[in-house]
């Protein structure tokens, strides 16, 4: 609903909904069970070409598991999953060449030089180059794009944490992926590096790369995401743009005002109606009016807390927050 800057040529096909090829990720009733514990209990979502999806959720909610199932790194217990039209459990290397995976590096390839490593890893994608998508990304262009030009000939082991992270991203996109997975890509980045990273992701999305990332940084999620998915209790309990989520969660806005020199504050789910009533009652006596919409943080915490406190069972939550947007 948001990322309608999709490719016009593909979108021009006849019929109502988006053409089949426009759906990059399609997850239905994904279940994951470790021994006796259900980690995922029916995760459902889709991603369309060029969309940036941010997957939020408490630690242990199954974000990494979900991503690893989609990457074909982990076998699911049940459910239907299609990534770029293929079941990841049976994805071949041709399919893999269209994916980009940004891993949290630790100390691998420490002896390699930045340019050397990108050149090498890029080489594996050369047989998958097409007229439409030239693979791999030109090494020097890529190095410039992630801002590592000065470190191009440095050994990987000598890079700072932020520089390593950029290298991870560069490795993830060296094959010009159609779909990019980022698991907590900005953990440990300083604000400047983070900001540059955001620019990079937006740039990729503008070129029709679909991005699925996880993060714990809600401001980042709000800034980057076309759509936010909230994973809690093994299900997607929220699915939509940040603003829509807060409406769905009926997270309360805060209204502050001053009357007769005294400050007041009121939390309300319907701030517009509340403010109108306020003026009807007190008119000119009201001053210093301030309405603070629920932030994504409020929404997120509301959803997760409700779920954890058991006010809403998983089913209801999925129904209330999820179904409406699909």
């Amino acid at each position, binding site marked *: 609903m948001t990322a309608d800057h999709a490719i016009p040529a593909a979108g021009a096909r006849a019929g109502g909904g988006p053409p089949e090829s426009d759906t990059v990720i399609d997850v239905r009733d994904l279940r994951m069970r470790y021994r006796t514990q259900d980690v995922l209990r029916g995760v459902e979502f889709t991603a369309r070409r060029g969309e940036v999806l941010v997957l939020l959720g408490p630690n242990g909610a199954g974000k990494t598991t979900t991503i690893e199932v989609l990457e074909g790194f982990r076998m699911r217990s049940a459910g239907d999953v299609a990534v770029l039209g293929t079941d990841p459990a049976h994805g071949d290397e041709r399919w*893999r060449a269209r994916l980009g995976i940004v891993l949290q590096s630790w100390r*691998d390839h420490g*002896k390699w030089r930045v340019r050397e490593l990108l050149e*090498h890893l890029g*080489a594996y994608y050369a047989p998958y180059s097409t007229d439409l998508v030239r693979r791999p990304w030109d090494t020097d262009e890529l190095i410039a794009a992630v801002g590592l030009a000065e470190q191009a000939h440095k050994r990987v082991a000598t890079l700072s944490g932020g520089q390593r992270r950029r290298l991870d991203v560069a490795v993830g996109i060296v*094959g010009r992926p159609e779909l990019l997975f980022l698991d907590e890509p900005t953990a440990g980045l300083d604000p400047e590096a983070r900001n540059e990273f955001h620019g990079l992701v937006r740039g990729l999305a503008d070129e029709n790369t679909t991005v699925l990332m996880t993060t714990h940084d809600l401001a980042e999620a709000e800034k980057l995401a076309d759509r936010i998915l909230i994973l809690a209790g093994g299900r997607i309990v929220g699915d939509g743009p940040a603003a829509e989520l807060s409406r769905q969660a009926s997270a309360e806005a805060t209204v502050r005002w001053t009357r007769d020199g005294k400050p007041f504050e009121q939390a309300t789910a319907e701030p517009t109606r509340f403010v109108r009533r306020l003026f009807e009652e007190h008119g000119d006596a009201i001053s210093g009016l301030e309405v603070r919409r629920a932030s994504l943080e409020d929404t997120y915490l509301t959803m997760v807390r409700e779920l954890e406190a058991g006010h809403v069972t998983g089913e209801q939550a999925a129904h209330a927050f999820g179904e409406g947007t699909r």
Partner: protein
Amino acid sequence: MNNPVWYAARTGLRRGWTELKQTFTSGQDVFGYVLWTVLLIVPLFLVGDEALEGAGISAGAFMLPSMLGMTLAFTGMMTTAQLLATEREDGTLLRAKAVPHGMVGHLVGKVVMVSGTALVSMALPFAVGVFMVDGVAQRGGGALLTLVWVVPLGLLATLPAGAVIGSLVTSPRTIGLLMLPVMGLVVISGIYFPLTELPEWLQLVAQVFPVYWLGLGLRAALLPDVAVAAEIGESWRYLETVGVLGAWAVAGLLLAPPVLRRMARRESGAAMAERHRKAMQRVV
């Protein structure tokens, strides 16, 4: 479909070459090669030209080729295992898994890298040792031809086996523990003294493993004919050498692919993060 596989294999050759250049330009690694050379040369110094009973050669001459054979077995098996276990822990393998046919490239690269490392680890002590003891490598080309099949067969017998070990252990530190039995094996494998000096049952144990046969193969190639007197049955036993090393090679090559595939399949970001966490706990 086949084409990208070959392409990845060629990319892997370049990878191995790059890694070889890296290891020979990294101070820590070069120190390792020099240290290994010193460790092999010291016993040569100690025994000097002391004669080996009834074999017409010095004890030093017996030791030098034997130690080269041991180096080959050791590097082929333990270095492969060590690298694989380390690269699993640090995420190198996961990265390989994330690129198309990256595992093929990684494996080819590892074979090139370990083979090159093994050859250099043998060449250095040989180059020094050959000037310290008499009677080594003075036979004609025919005997040296033995090297041409013993060394590649030795790599085939040990590399896949090392890959299996490296896939099965849970962490690189387990390899460290494995070093103890390996040392024991070296002691009973006729490297520092002829196998015939050991009780018969120990001789049998030693002849199950490649270390003894590689020592024998290298001695066959580098020692004069009279030295055969120190061997079991007073023979270089070429057929048996091919048989045992060949059996290790076949077993390794049959076992390694499924074991490597199983290991690769289990590799995931979560598995790596877990190992990272455990490794860090150990550091703290």
